[in-house]
């Protein structure tokens, strides 16, 4: 691809004929982030910025930020933003999108935010088929508050609230959100990617694009989960954290597309399975 990655404008060329093929996306503010070294929120932010540029959405986007380490998303992505209470981003985004259906609306949520306190909001927004896109950053802990156990914490993983390691009998198994969201009626696209390697980052961006495009095409709810590292709370170096994703997270949280709806995006076509013969009773 000759196009400059991330930049909305045409590739920059200098006097010596060199072409700038990778630079900060125009939608991403040029300032240092507050994230720890090796934290994958930075990569996820950049991919969001690149896609907003590439899809030409910068002037027409409302970001709904959540509570977690990414609470300051609005400082980094140069679009209109709303800050939602913990877990409620999908509810806030529902309001934004229904008031302004012309806007591109996305939420950006961690696993504590989305899969714990915000479980109800995400499930019902997906089920209603809200025309929104969700970027779900799963780092298996409550990063911001010091690494407590999240619903996504792996069995045996030690956190401040399960110092002996998560135990299946006591705390249950890690929740696989993408698999759950894929089963809800309003979900038009659902996939899980990972930010641990160059190849996976490039694939994750393709999934994010699809999760964004089901909204811009009016097809329904778009969801993308990104497996991400939190070196600080995992007590690992950034390199060891990436290896943990590869070796431990991906085997439990498989990567891939879990749902991809085709059709004209009308409620009728999305609800088609329920209007099949025999599905009408139970009034």
């Amino acid at each position, binding site marked *: *691809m000759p196009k400059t990655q991330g930049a909305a404008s045409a590739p920059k060329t200098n006097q010596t004929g*060199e072409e700038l093929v*990778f630079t900060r996306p125009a939608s991403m503010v040029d300032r240092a982030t507050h994230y720890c*070294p090796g934290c994958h*929120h*930075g990569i996820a932010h*950049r991919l969001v910025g690149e896609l907003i540029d590439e899809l030409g959405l910068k002037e027409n986007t409302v970001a709904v930020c959540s509570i977690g380490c990414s609470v300051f998303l609005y400082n980094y992505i140069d679009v209109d933003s709303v800050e939602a209470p913990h877990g409620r981003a999908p509810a806030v985004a529902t309001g934004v999108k229904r008031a302004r259906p012309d806007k591109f609306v996305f939420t950006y949520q961690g696993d504590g935010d989305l899969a714990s306190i915000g479980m109800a909001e995400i499930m019902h927004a997906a089920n209603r088929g809200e025309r929104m896109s969700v970027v779900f950053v799963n780092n298996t802990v409550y990063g911001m508050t010091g690494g407590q156990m999240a619903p996504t914490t792996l069995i045996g993983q030690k956190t401040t609230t399960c110092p002996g390691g998560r135990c299946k009998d006591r705390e249950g198994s890690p929740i696989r959100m993408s698999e759950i969201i894929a089963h809800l009626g309003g979900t038009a696209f659902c996939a899980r990617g990972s930010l641990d390697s160059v190849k996976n*980052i490039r694939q994750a961006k393709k999934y994010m694009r699809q999760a964004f495009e089901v909204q811009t095409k009016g097809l329904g709810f778009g969801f993308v989960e990104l497996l991400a590292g939190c070196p600080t709370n995992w007590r690992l170096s950034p390199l060891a954290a990436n290896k943990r994703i590869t070796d431990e997270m991906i085997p439990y949280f498989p990567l891939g597309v879990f749902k991809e709806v085709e059709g004209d995006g009308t409620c009728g076509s999305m609800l088609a399975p329920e209007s099949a013969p025999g599905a009408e009773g139970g009034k």
Partner: protein
Amino acid sequence: MSRITVSEERCKGCLLCTQVCPVTIIRQSERINQNGYKVAEVPAEDMAKCTGCASCATICPDVAIEVWRGKKPKPGSKAA
């Protein structure tokens, strides 16, 4: 001929870029930036080996790396 620039101000010394470079030319320097991080660098004598693949920039969580591609190797080169 390709090359990268590493922002001394933005690099957090995480070293993720050093592991993904196909020609392993990125290393940690001895320079400590304002935030206390030892920044990544490509030694001047190694820069000519850069393929312009942008792997380092893709994995950098801090958008500290820019990649420039020279026009010498004409199409047909598969760097993406």
